[in-house]
Every structure is written in structure tokens, then in C-alpha cells.
């Protein structure tokens, strides 16, 4: 008996089955002439946090809507938690939690009443109701405020309540569509702290969209989406590695001499009139050897690591900015154009 367990335990450790929580295969969505999402394919592994990063109008929300069965793909297919989003929408819906860009709470109800409403609609067993509501309120630190009306909540609290609600029916995948829009930096940080802890404690897969670079860093893997296509997909570290190495910037008493000296020692150094830039693999660890090999006096040292802004620039040729695209989503623009 004991050996059996160990054996099977070992077997699963050596060959972990690549469990996909979301499988997307050539998914496309067109609004009339406008192709919002173009043959997108990717997998999201169970238990990971996965970010969809792109400017407004890139197709992020359109994709998330198809995965949540709220919108029908024009072609291609997708499975969420093992169910087809087109053929088994109800099975998908009961296994996902959703947090939208805009608030979807009833402000005239208390937090607990909002949660109870959700629990009943998602079929949480009656005998688990109270303990489950208590548990999710606890998870987001609102256990003391359960009896308060939502209209008395701050924006950050409402958002946390929505995340708690999305987890009420123990979903396998949590979808967050631009979850921190309109929240202040402290609240945003607090929210991500909650989400990542929930991922660990509840074992839920987290899929989120964002156009904030710093937020994408919370993901284990990032898909960069632009004009409806995935232009890159990897871990934050690997994406940054594509952009290139770290650089050390020096300001010295004699930049020309310093550059000559460093080059003769085999460093990739260049002087740009404003200082010396040395490209190295590991910025921080290279600083001592760079400085000790110089005869000229060093006035300033800084290390620049490539960030996601550089990554986005590399793949799309432009900077991502909150105001880079029209604020209307593609779907809304389409509807608006049809109404006219």
C-alpha cells in the first residue's frame, strides 16, 4: 500500500501532466469588416497566473468575452476548464469566476446579500452557503463589513468584494478584465496581493487583461497582444531577455579614456557623449569588476534593466500608454457604428 502510493507519487512528480486550464485554438472574432481577434492560439496552465497585455482596442476584452462564453467566436475554438466555450457554455460558466472592468454589484444590498445572491445562482449547496460567504469575505479582509450596504463601500473595497464573489463558487479559472482601472496605486497593490494569495490558497488559475506594464509583472506568463494578434508569449524574464542585456551607465572624469580601457578588457562599451554605456549580462554583479578595472575617477553609476516597456516597444514598435488607443472597446465601437 505504502509503496504503491510512493510510486505513483513519484511517477507524477517526474512526469507532471501538462494540465491546461484554458486551451485556445485559432480563435477569431470579427465585427463586420473589423477583425478584432485574428487566429489566436495559446494555452494557460492550471494554477498559473496569465496576463493579456496590450493597448486599448488590441482585442483583449473581445478575447476574454469569448472565453467567458459572453460572445461567440467567428471561427476557431476554445476550451475552459475542459469545456468547449461554444457547445458547453453553461458548464464553462459554472466553473469560472468573472470580474469585469465595470462594477457589477447591487449597491442597495449588503455585501453578504450580494454574495448570497451569487451563491444561489451558481448553485452553492445551501449547507455550505454561510461558511463559504464567511470564508471569501475573510480572504479579502472584509469580514467585518459583510453587513454593510455596498453603497457605503470605497472603490477598492467594492473591487475586493467582487473578487471574493467571483471565488464564491470555487471556480477553476478566475477572469479579471482590466481589474484595477480607476483604482489608486495602494488599492491596486492590495488587490494583487489578494489575488495572488487566493491563487495559492484556492488553487485557482488567474487570467487577466491589463494595459499597465507593472501589472503584467504579476503574471507568470504574459501574452502581448496587438491589433488582435499575439506578438509574444513568455515569462516576464524571458520576454525581457529577448530585448537584450542589462546596461551599466557610468559618468566618469574622462569618458573617452574609460571607454578605451573597458573595450581593451573585452567589455561591450560605448561612449555617447553623455557618459559610458556598458552592456552586460547581469548588471549588478558586473558593476564591481567594471569599476575596479578603471583608472579614471567614476562620478556616477546606474544599472538599467530592460522592463516590459522595452519589451512592448521591441515587439510592436511603439510604446504602450494608457491613452494610446481610443477608450472604447472594439465591440462597443462596432455597436456604436451600427446604431448611427
Amino acid at each position, binding site marked *: 500500500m505504502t509503496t504503491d502510493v510512493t510510486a505513483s507519487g513519484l511517477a507524477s512528480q517526474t512526469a507532471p501532466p501538462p494540465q491546461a486550464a484554458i486551451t485556445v485554438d485559432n480563435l477569431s472574432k470579427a465585427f463586420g469588416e473589423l477583425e478584432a481577434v485574428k487566429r489566436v492560439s495559446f494555452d494557460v496552465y492550471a494554477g498559473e497566473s496569465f496576463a493579456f497585455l496590450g493597448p486599448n482596442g488590441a482585442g483583449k476584452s473581445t478575447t476574454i468575452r469569448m472565453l467567458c462564453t459572453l460572445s461567440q467566436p467567428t471561427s476557431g475554438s476554445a476550451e475552459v476548464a475542459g469545456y468547449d466555450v461554444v457547445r*458547453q457554455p453553461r458548464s464553462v460558466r459554472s466553473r469560472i469566476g468573472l470580474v*469585469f472592468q465595470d*462594477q*457589477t*454589484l*447591487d449597491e442597495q444590498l449588503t455585501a453578504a446579500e450580494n454574495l448570497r*445572491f451569487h451563491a444561489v*445562482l451558481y448553485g452553492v449547496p445551501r449547507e455550505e452557503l454561510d461558511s463559504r460567504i464567511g470564508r471569501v469575505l475573510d480572504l479579502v479582509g472584509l469580514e467585518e463589513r459583510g453587513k454593510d450596504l455596498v453603497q457605503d463601500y470605497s472603490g477598492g473595497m467594492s473591487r475586493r468584494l467582487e473578487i471574493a464573489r467571483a471565488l464564491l463558487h470555487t471556480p477553476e479559472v478566475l477572469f479579471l478584465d482590466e481589474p484595477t482601472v480607476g483604482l489608486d496605486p495602494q488599492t491596486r497593490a492590495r488587490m494583487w496581493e489578494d489575488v495572488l494569495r487566493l491563487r495559492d490558497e484556492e488553487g485557482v488559475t488567474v487570467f487577466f487583461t491589463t494595459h499597465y506594464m507593472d501589472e503584467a509583472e504579476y503574471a507568470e506568463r504574459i501574452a502581448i497582444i496587438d491589433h488582435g494578434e499575439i506578438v509574444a508569449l513568455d515569462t516576464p524574464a524571458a520576454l525581457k531577455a529577448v530585448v537584450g542585456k542589462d546596461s551599466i551607465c557610468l559618468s566618469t572624469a574622462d569618458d573617452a579614456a574609460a571607454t578605451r580601457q573597458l573595450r581593451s578588457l573585452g567589455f561591450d562599451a560605448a561612449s555617447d557623449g553623455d557618459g559610458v554605456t556598458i552592456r552586460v549580462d547581469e548588471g549588478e554583479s558586473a558593476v564591481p569588476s567594471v569599476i575596479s578595472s578603471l583608472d579614471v575617477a567614476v562620478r556616477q553609476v546606474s544599472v538599467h534593466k530592460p522592463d516590459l516597456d522595452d519589451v512592448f516597444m521591441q515587439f510592436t514598435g511603439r510604446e504602450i500608454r494608457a491613452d494610446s488607443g481610443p477608450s472604447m472597446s472594439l465591440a462597443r465601437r462596432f*455597436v456604436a457604428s451600427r446604431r448611427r
Partner: protein
Amino acid sequence: MHTDVRDRPEAHAPAKQDVRLSVARELATTGMVWRRELIRYRRARTRVITGLMQPILYLFVLGYGLTPLVGETAGFDFKKFVFPGVVAMSVVTTSIFSAISIVWDREFGFLREMLVAPVSRVALVVGKALGGATVSTIQGAIMLALAPLVGVRLTPTVVIAVFAISMLMAFSMTCFGVFFASRLKKIENFQVVMQFLLLPMLFLSGALFPPTGLPSWLMFLTRINPLTYAVDPLKRVVYAAQDIPDAALERFDPPLEVFGYAVPSWLSLSIVMMFGVAFLALSIRSFGKDE
């Protein structure tokens, strides 16, 4: 142990069919949506009061104002006449207001929370309609309690019958309202609905004057107005308990005739029921279509 492990992938492999909705789950959903309407009603004190303002004005201001002008027949006067009509008005107005709350639900995003849940639209719409019906019946009951103030006598039978008719009327009108609310995209359009539908329907229902002896075009409008068929049985039930002489009855409550046929109450109520069911079906079809 081994078998367990080997069996697991199969046990986890999802069926190719989508889950069937269970009746229990549907009923629980309807019940929850209904309960939410009641909780909101209980919290919105101002809504309760404003909802009663209009019928109270009609009853006392119009009632006392017109009584001398209309005169009385064997002790039966205009304020007694208008009483059941005013109860109906309060029920109908509340029904439409309850239904219109869907537009607010959309504005505040809660409609989305309902629509993305793995439940049927039928359960949601029925819950909404029953919730609106319950709240409206309560409003009607509050008005009914004012009966002694205008000298209208209530018996247990009258109370029960008024309740039953109010509930049916409220249900039908809420379904009617839900249909419009699910198509109204902007709350501003609500005024339009009020002006062009609710007020004409109320005025042409026989609630404020008997729908007889009118010019033929007005007569026609009252006869195609579904509310006429809800108000008529309500009036009859209330008047029947007042010991009104035939002369007064003939003046204030002549039988409701369509092409010379006196429509009996059971038929009137069936018409109201069919109207409600038809709009329930339409509401289910259009509810959340464009979200």
C-alpha cells in the same frame, strides 16, 4: 490504489453534453431574484411613499373635488366609485416602476452579474415578474386600508378577491414593463414610456370614469386596453359589498360590453392572464439579448 490513479483521467474527462439545468436550481434562482426585489423595496422608503402619492392625490383631491359635480345616486358617490380604480392605479404604477428597475440594473452593472450566471433567462425574468407583482400587491394593500376613510366597506371576501385580482394585474403589468425595460437602453426614455403608455392606459381603463357612453374612438381605445379587463372585475368585487341600489350601479358601473356582449369577470381575468403570459414570453426572448 493503482486503479484509482489510472481511472482518474477518465473520471475527469468532461461529457460532451452541456449540463442540464435542474428544476431545483431554476426555482432557487427565481426565488432569489424575487427576494432581492423585496429587500430593495423594504430599503427604499421613499419609493414606497412616492408610489402612494399619486393614487392618494387621485383618491382625496379628485375624489372630494368631483363628488359635488358628479352628485350621488342613492348614497353612492364619486369617491366611493373611484376607490377601486385608485387601488388599481397604485398596483399598476408600482408594477411598471419595479420593471423599470431593470434599466437601473443595467446602468449599475448588476444585470450583467445576473446574465453571466449559469442560469436560464426564464428563471431570472419570472423572478423579476413575481418580485414586482408582490411589491405592487403590497402597495395596493396599503391603499386598500384607506377604504374606511372614503366610506367604502371591506369584507374578508372583498379583501381576498382584491388581493387575488391585484396579484394577477401586477404580474401582467410587470411582465409588460419588463419587456419595455429590457429594450430601453437609456433611463431617460422611461419618461416617454410613462407619457405614452402608462398614463393613457390608466386613464382609459375605467379606473377614473365608467368606460361607457364615450365617443366611439375612445370606446375603442378602452376596449383594446388590457387594463380595462383588470380594473372591471376589481370594481365589481368592491361595489358588490357596498349594498348599492341597482340605479346607482347602472349609473356608476354599467356592464363592460364588447360589441354588445357583456364580458364576465372570469373572461376579463383570462384576458389579463393571457396578456401577462404573452409579455412574459416576449420578455424572456428580449431579456439580455444585447448585453
